């Protein structure tokens, strides 16, 4: 089981080969407008007016994206409202990314004299860097070099019966081969946390899973609202799902059956390989960038879609540097969004394939994408803004 990837100095393997410009904002956006092969994060979450814990999350996200194996090299600039905080100093971000051995360049606007001079320097630097990156050739890597993250969304009853279990089978195969897999969505383990906690690799992992469920449920109760008016979302209910417990029990099937190594914070990099639960927010505008910052080279959106109508172009990605692939097990959803969906597992419901067989087929699709085949939505040049998952009140 091999894929063709780009070797990085820290021994990891990228499945794409970008130059990343961070933080987001005008300077980064304009450099990326000019230069092919670049990426930047589009977000209003600069860290300004945020608690130390939240500023550290913003920093961890930027550093993690920079260290992602899909990134060949990085430009860090000083033009951001958060840049004055110690956690978010450009030199700190640059140093932490450079520890991976990859090339990092700093642009200090004050040193350049003004923004337009900094832009000129950035454009010329980025042009040179993408050209340098393009000289690298793909080479074969084992599956132990792959890290993937998954979210299930607009879940319906096909998600729990087929869509998620087939993703779970893929996860088992990747983890078994020594790779890394992330799943998360802290609201959606409520009602299923006891099942997940049994899979903790040690007592600490099990305890953390229960704690995340408890913290999330306490926060939900503190709102004074019935969580059913928030989650399950209306599309879930229209798709046949009734309660949060039912949604959660179906949702956790996407994690497969491997032992859970531990619980990570949003954008936190794991200490080793294997399966990890991430304490993150379910929103597609947030979760994928977090997985990419944790090191995922590919992210998967397992779509139910039973409650959706007429949405054929599914949104491309918010993972910034990692391609997004869409899967579904719902035949109506496939018919609705055939031009966006890369993999269909409704065959399991139709009795044409077992979960095991569909999982094997999914792995082949993943290896092709990892080797350079574009996902269907990757052909669209559009990036939705990222909401970095911050937990504290802004001031």
């Amino acid at each position: 089981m091999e894929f063709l990837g780009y070797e990085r100095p820290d021994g990891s393997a990228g499945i794409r080969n970008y130059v990343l410009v961070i933080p987001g904002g005008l300077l980064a956006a304009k450099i990326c407008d000019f230069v092919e092969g670049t990426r930047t994060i589009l977000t209003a979450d600069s860290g300004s007016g945020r608690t130390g814990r939240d500023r550290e999350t913003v920093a961890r996200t930027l550093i993690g994206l920079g260290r992602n194996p899909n990134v060949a090299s990085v430009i860090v600039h000083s033009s951001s409202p958060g840049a004055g905080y110690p956690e978010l100093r450009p030199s700190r971000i640059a140093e932490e990314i450079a520890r991976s051995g990859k090339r990092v360049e700093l642009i200090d606007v004050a040193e350049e004299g003004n923004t337009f001079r900094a832009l000129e320097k950035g454009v010329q630097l980025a042009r040179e860097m993408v050209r340098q990156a393009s000289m690298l050739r793909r080479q074969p890597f084992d599956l132990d070099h792959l890290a993937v993250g998954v979210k299930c969304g607009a879940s319906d009853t096909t998600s729990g019966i087929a869509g998620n279990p087939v993703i779970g089978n893929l996860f088992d195969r990747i983890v078994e081969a020594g790779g890394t897999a992330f799943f998360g969505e802290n609201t959606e383990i409520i009602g299923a946390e006891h099942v997940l906690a049994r899979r903790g690799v040690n007592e600490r992992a099990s305890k953390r899973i229960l704690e995340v469920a408890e913290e999330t449920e306490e926060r939900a109760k503190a709102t004074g609202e019935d969580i059913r008016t928030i989650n399950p979302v209306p599309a879930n209910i229209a798709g046949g799902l009734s309660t949060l417990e039912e949604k959660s029990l179906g949702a956790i099937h996407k994690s497969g059956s491997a032992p859970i190594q531990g619980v990570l914070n949003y954008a936190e990099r794991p200490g080793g390989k294997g399966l990890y639960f991430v304490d993150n927010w379910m929103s597609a505008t947030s979760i994928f960038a977090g997985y990419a910052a944790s090191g995922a080279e590919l992210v998967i959106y397992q779509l139910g879609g039973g409650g959706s109508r007429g949405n054929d172009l599914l949104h491309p990605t918010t993972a910034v540097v990692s391609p997004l692939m869409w899967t579904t097990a719902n035949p109506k959803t496939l018919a609705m969004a055939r031009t966006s969906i890369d993999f269909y597992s409704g065959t399991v419901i139709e009795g044409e394939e077992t979960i095991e067989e569909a999982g094997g087929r999914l792995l082949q699709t993943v290896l092709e994408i990892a080797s350079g085949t574009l996902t269907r939505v990757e052909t669209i040049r559009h990036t939705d803004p990222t909401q970095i998952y911050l937990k504290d009140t802004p001031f």
Partner: protein
Amino acid sequence: MPARGALMLSEKDNVATAVEEIKQGAEVPVRLGREVRHVRALEEIPFGFKVAVADIAKGAPVVKYGESIGVASVDIEKGRRVHIHNLAGARGRGDLAKGGP
């Protein structure tokens, strides 16, 4: 084999998920692995929705995946559609916490 009837996911389950559009009065084949049993649908069960495969008393757990997905908010007859009108979640209920003890 075309998809027909409804699927149970654990033998502990008292609901099954429809994998076709089920009409009122239909004898529904309910599959659990290789085993097939039959339940008469007392009402229409749309694709993806759940049908009770046993009588479920008000207050008793509704079981899917072998785990509780909430409690019956009214008595549910075998063959009835089970959804938010007769099944209530028990978790994350801020509305109950407010007036609760």
